[in-house]
């Protein structure tokens, strides 16, 4: 029969690292989104921007927007993981 220690032991091993990843993940995701947002905002202010062909401008804008969208999703995931961690702590499970 599976005992509680059978269930816990293997998970406890990786838990401290998982907690750290979640704790570090939120500020990291916020920073990434801030950076990609900044890149998108300043893209057209680059000195060489006006010299780029329209196709290249469109590609760069498309890529920058995709990065922002990806980082928004990552931030959302990081927030959900952090909220879960906080909940587990509030319930005294950690």
């Amino acid at each position: 029969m599976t005992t509680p220690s059978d269930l816990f032991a293997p998970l406890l091993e990786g838990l401290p690292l998982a907690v750290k990843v979640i704790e570090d993940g939120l500020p990291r995701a916020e920073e990434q989104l801030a950076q990609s947002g900044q890149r998108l905002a300043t893209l057209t202010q680059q000195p060489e921007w006006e010299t780029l062909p329209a196709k290249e401008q469109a590609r760069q804008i498309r890529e920058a927007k995709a990065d922002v969208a990806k980082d928004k999703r990552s931030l959302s995931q990081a927030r959900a993981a952090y909220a879960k961690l906080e909940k587990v702590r509030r319930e005294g499970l950690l």
Partner: protein
Amino acid sequence: MQSTEESELSAKQQQFIAALIAGNTITVAAKAVGIAERTAHNWLKQPAFKQVYEAAKQAIFDEELNELRESKKLIREMLVKHISAEVPVSNSSQLQAAKLLLDHYVVAGEMAELNEKMDAIQEKLKALGVEL
């Protein structure tokens, strides 16, 4: 080598058991080995047949349980490798792996709590003279 119980069964009966434990219904298994459905139901009532059939089912169950345990172990190891970035992994995957491990930890906690409650209930029932 065949066990004594198995050897007491005919080849058709053994084939029928094999078809059943492969996940077929009685109707399909009977048809597959070329026997009438009524014969199949009669066999299922015979003690010797039932014994072999149950043993075969148990063997399959044990085998699958072991495979499941092995899979769980591999999944857990893979999770830890993702969390510790021992394998090439994106920040997002690393975070998801960490959250998964936390989720499993919570579920394991709930299961442990349930186990304790079950033990307490069993103790109380035992004290009351109730056999489970």
